[in-house]
């Protein structure tokens, strides 16, 4: 019983990972931990990670940004246009600029004109969808393979990286050994599963993905260890106080929201440049909002956002690669909820404990009485997984103190 009590908040997050590995030992669900699944999970989680980091920069300066989705749409369109006109890397950069432009619009509205943040965000989302279509019609009037909802294919590509020696990458033209891959093939419990995870990270990974992952530690450095970051955070906590210390509150908010737009734009262009290769209408598919959820899941910490987006990406990858394996998720969720049941029970939160127990039982019954999950539901897996985890992990989210509150210069409190 002591085990449950000592399961602190910090480590409970690793229980699902452990459960996944255990369940993956069953043949039907083996796809749960292959390097292919992990590779896909990383690819799918990057746009969400970037949107989440974007949300972080904005919300830390006190501006709610539900316009992430719209800024991401701009990223997809501008990314594709830049990619088509100039080349892949230029496309990434132009996509970022497109997102940043809409971030700037959001900043002008919310900071300078004190428009309600939600209203402005909704407006941005609607506007972006319209603008993207409008631009697409205008830009590709005489271009082959383009329609009003799709752009032509971009030129060139970003390039992929495979670690030499460990994952079989090439040095020059020489082949090297694939050490981790061979371990994965050995099928040893636990070890091969971890090898799969590692291989997913090390082989065939886009340079853009590496860049995006590097933004996690970079964000930690910027926000927590530079004067700029300190001022940005202080503005979200107590703008009037910051102003009295000579912090340029408006400027900080502008910087935060514009970076937010740029990162969302990057997320969008990632979808195009490292994914489909063309702009498609509706391509973002609500990933901006999921990014916002991953930010909450991560409790406004870059590393937490990485975990949150990874979770979503994993569930997404699973439904794409192996619908049978999704069935295995049911038992994982059930057991995870059971762990939460005990945890809440020992923390004397009886209501929460009871609720977890009921849901745990429901998932168990579902698991036992079915062999697969209806197709329609499989597509929904990433969203429902995010929702479940978010609803049980949202207990202690530490919002910036003055988030969503318009700030007028010279106003005390």
């Amino acid at each position, binding site marked *: 019983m002591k085990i449950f009590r000592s399961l602190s908040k910090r480590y409970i997050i690793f229980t699902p990972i452990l459960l996944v590995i255990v369940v993956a030992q069953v043949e039907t669900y083996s796809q749960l931990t292959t390097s292919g699944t992990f590779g896909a999970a990383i690819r799918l989680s990057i746009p969400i990670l970037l949107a989440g980091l974007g949300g972080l920069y904005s919300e830390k300066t006190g501006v709610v940004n539900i316009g992430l989705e719209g800024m991401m749409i701009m990223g997809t369109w501008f990314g594709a246009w830049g990619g088509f006109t100039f080349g892949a890397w230029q496309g990434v950069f132009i996509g970022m600029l497109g997102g940043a432009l809409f971030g700037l619009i959001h900043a002008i509205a919310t900071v300078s004109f004190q428009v309600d943040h939600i209203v402005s965000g909704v407006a941005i989302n609607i506007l972006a969808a319209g603008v993207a279509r409008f631009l697409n019609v205008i830009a590709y009037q005489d271009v082959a393979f383009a329609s009003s909802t799709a752009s032509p294919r971009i030129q060139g590509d970003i390039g992929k990286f495979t670690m030499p020696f460990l994952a079989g990458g090439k040095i020059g033209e020489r082949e090297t050994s694939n050490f981790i891959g061979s371990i994965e093939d050995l099928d040893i419990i636990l070890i091969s599963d971890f090898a799969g995870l590692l291989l997913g990270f090390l082989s065939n990974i886009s340079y853009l993905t590496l860049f995006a992952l590097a933004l996690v530690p970079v964000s930690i450095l*910027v926000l927590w*260890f*530079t*004067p*700029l970051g*300190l*001022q*940005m*955070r*202080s503005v979200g*906590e*107590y703008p*009037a*106080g*910051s*102003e*009295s*210390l*000579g*912090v*340029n509150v408006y*400027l*900080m908010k502008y*910087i935060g929201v514009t970076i937010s737009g740029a990162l969302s734009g990057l997320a969008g262009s990632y979808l195009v440049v490292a994914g489909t290769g063309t702009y498609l209408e509706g391509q973002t598919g609500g990933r901006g909002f999921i990014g916002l959820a991953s930010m909450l899941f991560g409790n406004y910490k870059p590393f937490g956002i990485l975990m949150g987006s990874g979770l979503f990406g994993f569930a997404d990858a699973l439904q794409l690669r192996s619908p049978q394996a999704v069935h295995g998720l049911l038992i994982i969720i059930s057991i995870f909820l059971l762990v939460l049941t005990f945890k809440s029970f020992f*923390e*004397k*939160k009886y209501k929460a404990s009871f609720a977890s127990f009921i849901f745990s039982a429901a998932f168990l019954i579902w698991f036992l009485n079915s062999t697969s999950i209806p197709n329609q539901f499989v597509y929904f897996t990433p969203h429902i997984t995010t929702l479940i985890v978010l609803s049980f992990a949202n207990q202690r989210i*530490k919002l*910036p*103190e003055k988030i969503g509150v318009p700030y007028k210069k*010279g106003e*005390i*409190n």
Partner: protein
Amino acid sequence: MKSAINIKNITKTYPGVLANSDVSINVYSGHIHAIVGENGAGKSTLMKMLYGMVKPDSGSIEIFENKANISSPKEAINLGIGMVHQHFMLAKNLTVLENIILGIDKPFLKNIKLAKYRSEIQKVMNLYSLNIDLDQYVDELSVGEKQRVEIIKVLYRGAKILILDEPTAVLVPQEVDELFKNLRDLKDNGVTVLFISHKLDEVLEIADEISVMRSGQMIDTVLNSNVSKIQLAEMMIGKSLPVPPPRATSTSEVAILKVENLKSQDEDGRNIFTDISFEVNKSEILGIAGVEGNGQKEVVEAIIGIQSIDSGKITFMDQDIKNKGTRERLESGISFIPEDRQLQAMIMDMNLTNNVIIGRQNIEKYKSNLGTMKTKNAVKESEKVISAFEVKTPGTSTLATALSGGNQQKFVVGRELEDDPSLLIASQPTRGIDIGAQALIWEKLRKSRDEGLSVLLISADLEELIGLSDRIIVFYQGKLVKELDAKNVTPEDLGGYMTGLKK
């Protein structure tokens, strides 16, 4: 003597209000100089101009005998002026260290030299014998500690002139002593202190010179040794002081409200309050003293049914009301003045008439047979309140937000007393309002009590608590630790019980 601040003939008008009219003041270097005046006398405006937050319309400011044009707080800081605001300018989710160094570096992307700052701040703290843990989150600090952070913050920025805006308003007496000790240390180290207050005892205790402001004008500047408290007060309000009449009637022995063994826990199983038992008799004011956050607010909310309780009994007029809803309790004759008038007592964007109806929409007076509101009665009612409580407003259709704080509060108190309740729960009834409005509310409370009203009074203003109450109970860490007779208790005694120093 060298002058630190010399303000000459400064004037500032806001739309419709003359906030400062031709104000001049001279503060000597290395002195503690107090500015006293009622709320709205123009003290804060003057300080904001000195600190560069507001631009004067005309007049000049000299700092250390050099002409200064202060257009932003940053410039004020550069000139050596530091301000400790009444509402602390601290970000709760940042650490003490982060709060202190905020804004010192230009917002660039380089490493913050935390270790360097830490040792420099430590030096400042040693010099002025101030002490605080730099790595704590501000959220975890007590009020007095937060204030100390503010002081360290401005000293670290090289302030030679320290402006303190109502620094004692939020402190208990023991913390005030600590603050004054710190201020004297600062003075000995050559810091000039400008101290804004309306508490005359404190001003007389600490200040070398005292300036008095009234309705935007500087009335006079006097030496501490040449003035008495009564003289100061008369200069401040411009007429001789009303003397509170001693109580003429006596409390009856009939208990109106009886609270027995009340207990409540939060979600984590910590006690919010426990073992709370007391009675409020007919025609009695029972005061509740306690440092904010010691459970008194929650107990009061439990009595009107906002806060849930785990066990215990609440009896009002011989009826158990524990399981009744808040509206039923209010309709059975309890009135409630919440501590935050803008957050709880009024809807700021509604007019006064609607603010009278709110919470009473089910009373026959305001409800027609069709279920619509009888606005006419409400207008009449609000007119009655406005005239009885001297609320300054253009009319009953004015939005609540357009009234000044004192007038809002008078309106709230009037509204709550209007229905002749049996019990009034008054939480901070005169917080942050001017002396005139305060005196009126005190008088009305006394009068209602003499007519048989029972009052449960919570106040952070200990003089108010002692002056109004018949009995006082003290809360400390969620428990009722002491019951006192208000006739022979001093603020220092009360402060001792409130902070757990005395038992």
